[in-house]
C-alpha cells in the first residue's frame, strides 16, 4: 500500500477528486495548507506599499491506495491538476505499513 501526498492549486481540487473517484479511489483527506516552492510566494500591495508574501495557499490531498493503483492515480492527477504555470504543486509517494478501520478493526487492503 502507498500513500500519495499531493499539493495542488486550490481551484483544481474538484477536478482531481472526481478523477480519482473515477478510477476507484474511495476516500481521501483534504487540508488547506500554505507553503512555497520555486514560485517563491506572491506580492501584495496595500496603499502602494509592496509586501512579499512567502507562503502561498494550496490544497494538500492525502490518499492511501493499493500499490497497483499508484501509476494510474498519478496519471489522473497529472492530467487534472496541470495548468502549465508555476505553482502547480507536487506529488509525494510514501510506503504505508498498515491500515486499520477503527469501526470494525479490519486491516490491510479491506480497510482502505
Amino acid at each position, binding site marked *: 500500500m502507498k500513500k500519495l501526498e499531493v499539493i495542488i492549486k486550490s481551484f483544481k481540487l474538484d477536478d482531481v477528486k472526481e478523477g480519482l473517484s473515477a478510477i476507484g479511489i474511495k476516500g481521501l483527506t483534504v487540508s488547506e495548507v500554505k507553503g512555497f516552492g520555486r514560485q517563491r510566494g506572491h506580492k*501584495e*500591495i*496595500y*496603499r*502602494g*506599499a*509592496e*509586501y*512579499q*508574501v512567502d507562503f502561498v495557499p494550496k490544497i494538500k490531498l492525502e490518499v492511501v491506495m493499493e500499490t497497483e493503483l499508484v501509476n494510474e492515480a498519478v496519471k489522473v492527477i497529472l492530467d487534472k491538476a496541470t495548468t502549465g504555470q508555476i505553482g502547480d504543486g507536487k506529488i509525494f509517494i510514501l510506503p504505508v505499513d498498515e491500515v486499520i478501520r477503527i469501526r470494525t478493526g479490519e486491516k490491510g487492503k479491506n480497510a482502505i
Partner: protein
Amino acid sequence: MNAGDTVFVLLSAALVMFMTPGLALFYGGLVRNKNVLGTIMQSFILLGLITLEWVMIGYSMSFGPDIGGIIGNLDWFALSGVGMEPSESYGTTIPHLAFMIFQCMFAIITPALITGAFAERIKFSAFILFSLLWAILVYNPLCHWAWGGGWMGKMGALDFAGGTVVHISSGAAAFIAALVTGKRKGFGITQYIPHNLPMAITGAALLWFGWFGFNAGSALSCSGLAANAFVVTHISASAAALAWVSAEWIHSGKPTTLGAASGAVAGLVAITPACGYVGPVSAIIIGLVAGALCFCGVMLKSRFGYDDSLDVVGIHGLGGIWGALATGLFASVAINPAGANGLFFGNPGQLWIQFISVIGTIAFSFFMTFIILKVVDLIIGLRVSIEDEERGLDISLHNETGYN
C-alpha cells in the same frame, strides 16, 4: 428658534458621533490582528474622555467669551449658561445645547484621527494623558481661532466644517507623533499587512455616511446651504475614490479596495473646509486632486522612513492642506454670501488668508504636540515594552483578544 434646524443639527450630531466608531473600524482593520482591540479602543474611549473634557472646560475654551483672539474664557465652565435657549452668536435658531453637542463630536474625532500615527505601540495610559492634553491645549485653541471669535476667523479664513481645526491639526500632530514615538518593532523587516480589509472598508463607509452630518450639519440650519454642503461632500468623496484607484491602477497595476476607501476619505477631508463655499463642479476638481495627491503623499512616505502607521499625515494632513487652499481657490459668494470669493472668482487675497491659516495651524500643532508628547514620555513613557509590543496591545494592555 426653528424646529427644523434643531432636528437637523441634533441628527447631524448623532451622525458625527458615529464617525468615531467608524474610524475605529477603519483603523482596526488596517492593523495586525493582535492589535485590533487596542486600536479600536483608542478611538472608542475618546467618546468618554473628550465628552467630559468638552462639557467641563472644552466648550467654554473653544466658544466661550473671547480673550484676545486666542482662547475662550471659562465663563461657561461645566456648561453654566449653556441652555435650551439659542446662544447669541452660534446657531441662533437652535438651542445652545444642540450647538454644543454637535461641536462636541468634532472635538472627539479629532484626537481619534491622530491615533493612526502611533498605532500598535503606545501605552494606553500615555495615550489617555496625551489625548486629554492635546484636546485642551491644541484642539480648543484652534477651534476658538477658527470658529469661536479667534484671530483666524476674524482674519477672514474660511473653514466651513473643520479643514484646519480637525484635519490639518490632527495630520500635523500625527507627523510629530510618528517621529517622537518612533518606529514599530521590526519596521522595514516585519510585514504590517492589514488584517481585516472588510472591517476597514466598513469603517470607511461609516465615515462617509457620518460625514454628511459633519459637513451639511455645519450649516447649522436645515437650508439650501446644508444641501449644497451635502452634495459637494458626496461629489468630492466619489471623485477622490476614482482618482486614487486610477492612480494606483496606473502605478501598481491593480485597483484595490483599500485604495477606493482611502481615496474616498481623502476626498471627504479635502471638501470639509470648502463644502459651504464651493459648487458641484469645483467639488469634482477638489476631489480628483485630493485622491491623486494623497495617493502620492502616501507613496512618498516610504522615502522618508518615518512610521506613520495608518497614513494620517498623507490623508488628513495633505488632504486638509489641499482642502484649505482649494477653499481659497474655489470659494464663491454665489454659493454662500457670508463667505468670500476665491482666486478663481477674482479674489486672490483669499488664497493668502487660507495659506496663513494653514501655516498657523501646522506650526501651532507641531509645536504643542511635540511638547505634550515629551511631557507624557517623561511622566509615563510613551511606548509599551518590546515584549508587550510583540505580544500585541490587545492581550498585553487590555487582557482580551479580538478573535478566539
